[in-house]
């Protein structure tokens, strides 16, 4: 999967948010606040990534067990799919 171009990463007071543009504005009706791992994963999704690959990258960046990392990646990417922020 890979992120789409209709979400722009912005910084408000050190907090990362994704702001939708175009029709995604109406679909989402809000913004997405990213925590540190969410921001890391969003940055990795600039290029096509598989879930296992993202989990490995997460383990390399944060102190987290592989099983926990995989669950986090699955939950995060599922949410991104729901709002159309990634394509397969």
């Amino acid at each position, binding site marked *: 999967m890979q992120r789409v171009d209709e979400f*722009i*990463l*912005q*910084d*408000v*007071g*050190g*907090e990362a*948010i994704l*702001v939708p*543009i*175009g*029709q995604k*504005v*109406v679909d*989402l*009706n*809000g*913004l*997405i*606040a990213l925590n540190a791992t969410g921001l890391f994963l969003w940055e990795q999704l600039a290029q096509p990534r598989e879930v296992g690959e993202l989990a490995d990258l997460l383990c390399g960046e944060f102190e987290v067990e592989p099983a926990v990392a995989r669950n986090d990646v699955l939950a995060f990417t599922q949410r991104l799919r729901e709002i159309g922020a990634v394509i397969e």
Partner: protein
Amino acid sequence: MSPEPGAYRGVLDRLARAAQAKGQPYNGTIELTARCNLACRMCYVRLPANDAAARAAELSAAQWLEVVAQAQAGGMVFLLITGGEPLLRPDFFELWAPLTRRGLMLTLYTNATLVTESVAERLAAAPPSRIGVTLYGATAATYEAVTGQPDGLERCLAGIERLMRRGLPLVVRSTLSTYNVDELEAMRAIAADFGVPFQSSWYLTGRADRQPSEAAACRLSDSCGLDLEAEDRERRGLPAAEGRRTPPPANAEAFYCAAGQASFVLDPSGAMHVCLDLRQPGARPLEVGFEAAWAATRAFVAAHNELGAECAACDVRAWCGRCPASSMIETGTLTEPVPALCELAKLRAARETAGV
């Protein structure tokens, strides 16, 4: 992000605090024009639609795009486009369409009376995060009494319908006065029928340019206004005393909101101000650069951030909405008490202390 309005509000509040802590100008307002096709009695900024001098002073769409690019580089993420009536500008979409591609949380305030099928179509093609439509009454007679427009309500409702049909995210807002308060429930019903949120405000201030205003004459009585505040808190499931500001410490700062600390306003000529009600200091990003204009705005707030002696000693200050902007409008100073707000604060304190 959360679909829950309350939770979403919590995220927005957290972002505001984070930005203010860093002095980031994350929240901008562009007053695209002070001209309006309506002539609302109580409006704090109203010039005739055909005011040639006002039109001549307005920045062009290209100039605004330059200012916005600078503002975004300086940290702006949220942007409100307001007026006057922004849709009066014939070049509105020359500005609007590019703005919607910049990754801004963009809000448009309009009276919707100029929203034709074509305008609605162009807004749907370049949608904002939110459109706030102001409703001035629930009957044609009241709408006309407030705005001077005999067919205003009809045009407004048609505009809302055109926006709703295209799935645009709307909020209906109303400014309450003695002219329309009896139609509050009917205005709420109109918003509910469209399936959109309704917001209202009641405390009318004078004009920011200190020109004569009918605001005080149209303003609801304190008692009526406080009843509405209490009703609103109940409607939102908040405890009665939630309307009270947190009691400030003895050395409280005069500017208690984000104005000039994380938010700013640009008037139609491109001058930067603390807020819509406080037209200072007026530095121009196109002349001095956005960064310098923001620094001047922050410096102005920092230099005037002490309460006047009377307000500092007041024991109902925690219930008072006065700020340097309200003092400037009513007294021409940044610090003098505003008698109408003093009375309102006393009554609010008495009611909430008594648990009313």
